[in-house]
């Protein structure tokens, strides 16, 4: 992930990490997965582990599986009632590709899918053909304008 973004002069900083003891959420119901729509009760439980003092960070949760099955999903939805502000969250499943994390963070930062299999936002990251996927100029502009980029 760092390599893709740093190619455009964007650093990725890991603020902190921790191992959560929530085996009940290791197979996570995200149905239906939407980036700005409602989240499920299980997503709300998982996302309740957000640090409330860090509203401008993207939170990434690694799980074994999602239902419906997919490599990952991104959510910018505020999780009521305890979170008055949006807490952008990414869930990554164990079947993810090398690029899924960067791809889902791309969604959080405002990027959409593309049809070019050399780019990070190709909808099938397992099939990206370039060793280091590209970010296009307009994607770079969007990322730099995102509230989650400083």
């Amino acid at each position, binding site marked *: 992930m760092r390599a893709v973004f740093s190619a455009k002069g964007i650093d990725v900083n890991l603020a902190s990490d921790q191992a959560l003891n929530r*085996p009940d959420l290791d*197979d996570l119901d995200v149905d239906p997965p939407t980036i700005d729509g409602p989240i499920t009760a299980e997503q709300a439980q998982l996302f309740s582990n957000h640090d409330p003092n860090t509203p401008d960070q993207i939170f990434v949760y690694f799980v*074994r599986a999602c239902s419906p*099955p997919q490599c990952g999903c991104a959510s910018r939805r505020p999780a009521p009632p305890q979170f008055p502000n949006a807490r952008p969250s990414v869930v990554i499943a164990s*079947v993810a590709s090398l690029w899924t994390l960067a791809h*889902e963070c791309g969604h959080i930062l405002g990027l959409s899918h593309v049809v070019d299999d050399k780019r990070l936002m190709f909808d099938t990251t397992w099939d990206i053909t370039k060793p280091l996927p590209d970010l296009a100029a307009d994607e770079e502009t969007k990322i730099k304008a995102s509230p989650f980029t400083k």
Partner: protein
Amino acid sequence: MDVLEVLRTEFAKDDEVDYARLADQLGSSAVRALEELVGAEDPRIASQAVYLAGLIDGSGSFEVVAAGAASRHAIVRVSAAFALPRLPAGPASKLAIRLLSDPDAGVRGRAVRFAAPSRDPLLVRKAQEIAERDEEQWLRELAARLLDTNGGPPG
């Protein structure tokens, strides 16, 4: 593009796989291809095939979910457990009984979420057994909480 190829293309996506649209468009014509994908060695694709089969109301779709429940890969079995609420009651109960005894705690956990609130006395009894005797504390607590929320075990 044949059905198998359509499914392989859709299932390759990282996200935004539109399962509902696939179920509507393909319906029971997808069952044979789904059987093949569940039997393949890729657990990522197999778990997706199981999920889609659970959305299809047609001959053979239950057998695809049942095949997923017998997979050697836990993420495929957990996909079958996620499908339980969408299956017809009788077959779902039979499958749930098997999944409640799964060696993987996550699969049992997903199955107990289906069993505890059900009206099937056998399923509720199995959920009670998990609440009392499962080796995983988190699962005992989850089952007990679900049973309590739904009025407790049968008398």
